[in-house]
């Protein structure tokens, strides 16, 4: 079976404003055979939510700071505002350690919060694999 024929596992919506990090995470997840949808702004990511009939989203990888005015927190509010997305797993992977911000994420319901610089990409992806089964 060629690579193209291997059925893709789950679909991950990846929000990250930094191009280099976005590419690193996308490449890593694709090598693990996940389908990856990428967005650097709130609006780009919101478009994927609207088109979810075409592409179901199994997990959201969310950075706090995004391009533009809106943050990952705004996006999570949008996600949780939809009654069909109350339990979509969300991994917040950010370099922000502001406690109030973290508390707001937790209040909206997230699966994990990582401080980017302190974790190997592999550790986060391993957790994600366990999560998606």
């Amino acid at each position: 079976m060629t690579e193209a024929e291997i059925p893709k596992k789950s679909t991950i919506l990846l929000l990250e404003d930094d191009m280099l990090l976005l590419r690193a995470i996308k490449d890593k997840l694709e090598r693990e055979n996940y389908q990856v949808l990428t967005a650097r702004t709130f609006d780009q990511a919101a478009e994927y939510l609207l088109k979810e009939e075409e592409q179901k989203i199994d997990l959201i990888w969310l950075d706090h700071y995004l391009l533009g005015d809106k943050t990952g927190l705004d996006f999570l509010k949008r996600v949780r505002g939809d009654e069909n997305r109350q339990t979509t797993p969300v991994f917040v992977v950010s370099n922000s350690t502001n406690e109030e911000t973290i508390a707001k994420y937790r209040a909206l319901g997230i699966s994990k919060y990582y401080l980017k610089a302190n974790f190997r990409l592999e550790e986060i992806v391993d957790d994600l694999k366990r999560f998606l089964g």
Partner: protein
Amino acid sequence: MIPSDQLNAILSSMAEGMVVVDNDRKIILMNQAAGILLRFAPQEAVGQPLEAVFRFFRGKEAVAPENLPIEQAIRDKNIISISLLDNLYLRNRQDQMLPVSMLIAPLLREQAVSGAIILLRDITKEKEIDQAKTEFVSLASHQLRTPLSAISWYAEMLLSGEIGVVNAKQKEYLESLYEANRRMIELVNALLNVSRIDLGTFTIEPEPCDLAALADGVIAELLPAISHKKIELKKNYDPSLGSVSVDPKLTRIIFQNLLSNAVKYTPTGGTVTFYLLKEEGDVLCRVTDTGYGIPSADRTKIFTKLFRSDNVKDKEAEGTGLGLYIIKSIITAAGGSVSFDSLEGQGTTFTVRVPLSGMIKKQGTKELS
């Protein structure tokens, strides 16, 4: 002798505030500049006890009269200098809190102390500059984390071989790159912690914790370095310790800094012992090593930001000079203390004490990491 009218002119023209107290801490003289600072007419202040005219605060806590630097100056017959770093404020008659620097000298008459002379200066401007510096460090460190994460993750993927086979030499170079980058991340983390300490924005959230489990976790993380240097690690925990109310993250930072210092500054084949004990109403974490020790000339400086002793700089490139500053700041804010004993060439013992009743809670906006 200077004529008294000339002396009065000098006193009232001085830019710095001057307050003189007698042995009963009653004001016997106050100049114009001090009056403006304290919002108190000098003639009205004379004869009044010092604390009726102004009070001192360290950060936001009132300083008890017996702990005032004036007492130290009188007791030790020595000049005491209070700078920006001492974080001392005075509250004047209008309830304004002013950051101040001070010089306090004992007032000597024929060898006997008859009071103290206090020179006061408002350092609001310096404080603002210091604050701006700290905020800059915080912002810059935060911004550095993004490119550092990118370097780390790309190096990690190359090293794992998932992109293609890496030959032995390439792997060695990549490992060096990865390690240097890790050190930079640690430095940035430490700088961020220091800026949070300096801004007073860090939180202390005590909860019942199993200190032995916390210590074991830190030891497990450092095992690679411990075995690399063939260091014998001994543990000595009081089995009756039970759980103690501490902030687990901060306690981890303290344990981690104490133990990694001991490992870093002990030559290959040495011994490090980690104690958790109870003593006179305190819980003690004590780490002893058979390392390089602290030169006696450096004893007063080791808790200072960015200070590293010359005797270890040559031997050990790693080390930020921030670890002990962080420990001291955390433990002081939490109501505990840190002390040490050391003999150069023989080893060092650090002891951190926390009351058995636990750490003091502190509301803040940022966690240390």
